[in-house]
């Protein structure tokens, strides 16, 4: 297997250092090991786990109905991709997440901006939002199903609901945290209200808003998993529930892996956004 070969090369890379692991206290080792060795070591552990899983599954210690071998999951993935159904379900899921994210994100951004700017809007809106926020939004699921049935509406609503809160809170916070001295400077330089928002307040609030986006992406994903698990006719969640009926643990594990991969990808996109939009920020921008 390729996995086994990788582990072998990893161990051969610095066999001496790895051997030292046992002999010396940890701190001394961290000091002696180079960056590369540490990187190899950090990858070695998960790879060893996967290989152990593969071996246990193949030798029959792990029943395929409990946990199929990783190779079997990969095989299933390639079959499903070739038949076209996996990509189709994936597209359906991504579309639900995207639509829900845009709707919920817009609501959160608009409300958050209003409340961030205006004491009146804060008095009118904030308490209600905070009250609704106190409800774990997944607890609303039965109610949402009564409202929307188990169609697209229910899924998109749940995602939008989950997304709007982190965006709302971080937008409000971001606007409040803009340095009042910079706003004062804007007045001195003769900026009108619109230019003040455009040149000073929104850029100042952006780091916080983007943090909200990252939280929201994680919430969107969680909302989608839950929403799709109930009464879906398509999508990754449907794939998983359908597989459960036939005890296809390989498909179930595959859907779990896909959820994880998309979560990682979404986070990477959010990080990329931060790096692109916040080049000026000492904590995000590239090194000088």
């Amino acid at each position: 297997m390729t996995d086994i070969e990788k582990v072998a090369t990893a161990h051969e890379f610095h066999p001496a250092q790895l051997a030292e692991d046992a002999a010396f206290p940890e701190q001394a080792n961290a000091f002696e090991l180079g960056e590369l060795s540490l990187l190899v070591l950090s990858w070695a552990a998960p790879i060893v786990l996967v290989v152990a899983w593969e071996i246990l599954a193949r030798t029959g210690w792990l029943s395929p109905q409990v946990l199929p071998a990783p190779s079997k999951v990969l095989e299933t993935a390639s079959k499903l991709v070739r038949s076209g159904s996996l990509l189709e379900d994936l597209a359906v899921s991504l579309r639900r997440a995207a639509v829900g994210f845009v709707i919920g994100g817009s609501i959160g951004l608009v409300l958050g901006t209003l409340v961030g700017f205006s004491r009146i809007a804060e008095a009118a809106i904030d308490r209600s939002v905070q009250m609704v926020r106190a409800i774990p939004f997944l607890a609303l699921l039965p109610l949402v199903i009564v409202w929307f049935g188990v169609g697209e509406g229910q899924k998109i609503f749940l995602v939008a609901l989950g997304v709007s809160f982190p965006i709302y809170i971080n937008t409000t916070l971001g606007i409040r945290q803009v340095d009042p001295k910079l706003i004062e400077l804007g007045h001195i330089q003769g900026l009108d209200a619109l230019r003040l928002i455009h040149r000073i307040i929104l850029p100042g609030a952006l780091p916080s808003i983007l943090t909200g986006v990252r939280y929201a992406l994680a919430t969107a994903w969680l909302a989608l998993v839950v929403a799709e698990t109930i009464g879906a006719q398509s999508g990754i969640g449907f794939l998983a529930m359908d597989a459960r009926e036939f005890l296809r643990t390989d498909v179930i594990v595959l859907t779990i892996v896909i959820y994880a991969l998309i979560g990682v990808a979404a986070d990477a996109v959010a990080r990329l956004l931060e790096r692109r939009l916040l080049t000026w920020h000492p904590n995000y921008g590239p090194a000088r």
Partner: protein
Amino acid sequence: MTLHVSPPPHLSPPGPTAAVVVTNLKRAYRDRVVLDHLSLRIERGEFVALLGESGCGKTTLLRALAGLDRVQGGLIVAPRRPAVVFQEHRLLPWDSLWRNVALGLRAADARERAAAALAEVGLGDRLDDWPRNLSGGQAQRVALARALVQQPELLLLDEPFAALDALTRIRMHDLVRELVTNHRPGVLLVTHDVDEAIALADRILVMEGGAIAFEHRTGGERTARVTRAQLLSELGVDVSHGLT
């Protein structure tokens, strides 16, 4: 720019050479009077330094002139919106240097003008750099460029060099002197540094009890030395011993 309130009958209109005329300015926080019938006139091209103990109201005066604080009585007549440089540079960290300098500049050639202003403060090669890559002195020079690019008739400096190290401060003094000579705005420098006031100003005002208590015109080296001791005593510092 006019900040309301009944003009006193003896008010003379600001002459064509005045950068700002302040008459009978009043400001109190609750029952603590900060500005008490303060009057002041600064000509264009004149460099005025304002000394005073902490809390004597000099920053309140500057903020009133900048239009940042309300006054409760009196009159401020200034031909146009003044430019301000604060103790902190107040650069927008998300904008490049030229965009910082051009902030509020509504002209098609904003970038060229900003570039010229940056060149004037010796940072003409850093147009697209970020503020975070600047030293304290460089950042303050950008703030000066941002103030001067607006062609102000009145320039307000609120202890702009207080946070800089001694060497940088001396270089900034030279730069400011040169810039003011070239642009000829009226300047009000609020500072607590007597030597800085002597080094830069044509006229030094000492503020006390919410009004101008003493006024000096600075001249040659000799006058300056006399004034220094006098200024310090006016500020309540005992200078009878140890003065060279």
